[in-house]
């Protein structure tokens, strides 16, 4: 280690002269070396994404294939996780449920990232009345307990667009809106500290427009914060999506969702516990991996926290 550092003088850091791929490769290796748990979590997540992209490759049946002769069967070689009240294969439904969770999770977090950057950057950059107005709206959104807020919005929007696929779109939109409020605060405070830098002043002096400063100078500086928000929120979004679907306000049938499966298991779970066990395990494992990976990523990306973990 020490010999290599003195040999090429790079101190193990990426040099700007290197190509993008070299830098990514080097960053990747250092991540694997420094964060073994984070790497393990990343492997779980990669497996999850592969399943989410092509669930049918791994599933032993379709998610809505009804087989009334084999209903409520315990786990067996035919049905790895058993079968539900309508004889549908729980294992396959859990795999297809991964797609629902991942899709809604990423869509919601993406919407939250875009909204929170727009609101946070303009609020922090302009300050004054713009800031005051935006912040009062954020206050109002944050005053509502999250679950109640989403149940509200979801009920309103799902009347406009009923149906199983529409329910997922609506869910992603409302979750994205809710989560953008919290992260816009973080983006805003990062913007405020960025704007105080001399280079922003310099850009202003040479006549750069507000938009140019925000896009070229502020945005790259808050980008890390946005990435950290995304990685931290992804687990929370999946958790709250499952809670909503569990209460009956989330994903509508026939698309399987883990929360919905737990809801449907309520009646039969005392005699057939596997119905409730496997979907819940899938949620826990996914959120656990997301949290572990998010943690590791934040340690690597956020210079202020460096050394505290």
């Amino acid at each position, binding site marked *: 280690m020490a010999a290599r550092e003195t040999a090429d003088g790079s101190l193990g850091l990426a040099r700007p002269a290197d190509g993008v791929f070299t830098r990514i490769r080097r960053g990747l290796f250092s991540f694997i070396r420094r964060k073994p748990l984070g790497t393990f979590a990343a492997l779980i997540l990669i497996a999850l994404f592969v399943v989410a992209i092509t669930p049918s490759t791994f599933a032993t049946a379709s998610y809505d294939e009804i087989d009334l002769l084999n209903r409520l069967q315990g786990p067996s070689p035919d049905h790895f996780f058993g079968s539900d009240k309508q004889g549908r294969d729980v294992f396959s439904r859990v795999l297809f449920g991964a797609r629902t969770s991942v899709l809604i999770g990423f869509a919601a977090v993406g919407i939250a990232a875009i909204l929170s950057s727009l609101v946070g950057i303009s609020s922090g950059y302009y300050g004054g009345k713009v800031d005051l107005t935006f912040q*009062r*709206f954020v*206050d*109002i959104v*944050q*005053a*509502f*307990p*999250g*679950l*109640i807020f989403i*149940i*509200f*919005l979801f*009920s*309103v929007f799902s*009347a406009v667009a009923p149906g199983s696929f529409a329910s997922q779109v609506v869910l992603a939109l409302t979750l994205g809106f809710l989560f953008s409020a919290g992260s816009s605060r973080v983006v805003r405070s990062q913007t405020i500290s960025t704007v105080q830098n001399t280079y922003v002043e310099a850009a202003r002096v040479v006549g750069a427009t507000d938009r140019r400063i925000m896009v070229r100078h502020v945005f790259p500086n808050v980008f890390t914060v946005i990435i950290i928000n995304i990685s931290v929120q992804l*687990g929370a979004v999946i*958790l*709250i999506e*499952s*809670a909503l679907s*569990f*209460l009956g306000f989330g994903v509508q049938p026939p698309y399987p969702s883990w*929360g919905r499966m*737990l809801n449907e*298991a*309520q009646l039969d*779970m*005392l005699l057939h*516990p596997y119905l*409730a*066990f496997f979907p*819940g395990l899938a*949620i*826990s*494992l996914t*959120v*656990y991996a997301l*949290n*572990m990976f998010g*943690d590791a990523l934040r340690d690597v990306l956020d210079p202020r*926290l460096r050394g*505290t*973990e």
Partner: protein
Amino acid sequence: MRRLPPQDRGRAIHVYILRRILLLIPTFLGVTLAVFIVVRLLPGDIIDQIISDQADPSPEFRASVEERLKLNQGVPQAYAEWLFGLVQFDFGTSFSSGRPVTEQLTDRIPVTFELGIMAMIYSITIAIPIGVLSAVKQDTPIDYLTRSFAILALSIPSFWAGQMVIVYGFDWFSWTPPLRYEYLWDDPVENIKITWVPAVILGSFLSGSVMRLTRSTMLEEMRQDYVRTARAKGLTERLVIARHAMRNAMLPVITVIGLQVSVLISGTVVLETIFSLPGMGRYLIGALALRDYPTVQAIVLLAALLVLVTNLIVDLSYAFIDPRIRYG
């Protein structure tokens, strides 16, 4: 950082407190407006529910119910009347039962509060000592174990934990969900027997983030110069941690505990549903399904008010506890 002379500092605090309280007013009005409008945007209304029981739903019948429930009013007028009632602590009359909302909530509020307070006490009593221990023993197996536990606590959905306890509770610790709920003031022993399980589940979920934050702020404080000074003076490690590092490390932790009130309320909705506790959360879900506007409005407003006030208290207590805060 600019230091103010003591008398200016006192004035600055007062101005800051006043400003914060004044800012609460527009936010609160915004919340009432949002609640009022969103409830009315929900598809369908209570008359649909009433009519579905009626053999011959005539337009006249609908009109008469609308008249009785004052649903034929314009939204601005209804909003003004509702606000006027709120000022007098009158939340209106429930559409579904015909009784005052305040009366209906008096039995339910304590149930939710009890669950919430028990969960929070449990969360704090396990999270802070474990977080401190994890920081003191940084990078030892104890640290890894407690950190993994904290992330695990954040990853398990509380409704699933509830389901697993209901399914396996008897096998694990011979606990079964009781058939009927006993109020705290009727039968305290039975009541605690019912409430402790959901409280522990909810508390464990809350404890995850408190534990993580306690650990990271403790680590940060333990690197500070004043801690080194305290050690150099020859204080025992116990005193250094308890009297010096912990005091400062607790500030951000208090903030997060305050912010968790919102998470706590969401959690009670879910756990009351699973464990059939007659609290506000479960009542809200029922009232939402019936489109019982006054009840829904009252519960959501109370929840929002609770969040707003706790956030205010956290901010203000911060101003008193931490002299480094600038009041800008």
